């Protein structure tokens, strides 16, 4: 274990202060990235072993959400 405070949202390698990551940058990564490990066995409990939504398709429908822009919010 290192001495880094694991609860610290983070000073990066380069000493960047922790910032709240933007949702779009986050979704870009967690929805289209990350590994998907599928399996062969089908259990009787559920119809599918693995629930993985095709998130590219959903991202299109999500991104079409039009949110009204409050004036001056740019």
């Amino acid at each position, binding site marked *: 274990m290192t001495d880094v405070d694991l609860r610290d949202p983070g000073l990066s390698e380069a000493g960047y202060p922790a910032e709240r990551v933007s949702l779009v940058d986050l979704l870009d990564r967690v929805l289209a990235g990350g590994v998907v490990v599928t399996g062969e066995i089908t259990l009787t409990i559920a119809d599918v072993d693995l629930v993985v*939504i*095709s998130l*590219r*398709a*959903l991202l*299109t*429908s999500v*991104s*079409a*959400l*039009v*949110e*009204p*822009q*409050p*004036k001056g919010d*740019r």
Partner: protein
Amino acid sequence: MSQAGQAAPAGQRVRYRLDADDDPQAAERGLAALVLTIVELLRQLMERQALRRVEDGTVTDEQAERLGYTLMRLEERMGELLDEFGLEWEDLNIDLGPLGPLLDDHRA
């Protein structure tokens, strides 16, 4: 008007969320932005076609002058409509997802 709970297949639904509960003005402005975006699209298409015809030399100077003047007045009128609804030129657009925005930058 939130849209939770609908079961249409993913990717086949475009949602417009007008938060009428929070701000009726915003809903009206959102609707106006949509309508004016279409109007502006038509205006830009007409303008580009006019420019092509002027370049091709298929219109007389007099016709070109009238075309240009009409388009100029249309642009002014669009600016007035935007002011009336409290919108900026940058508010006019529709994001077509992978196809990008519907309109190019206003001044491009």
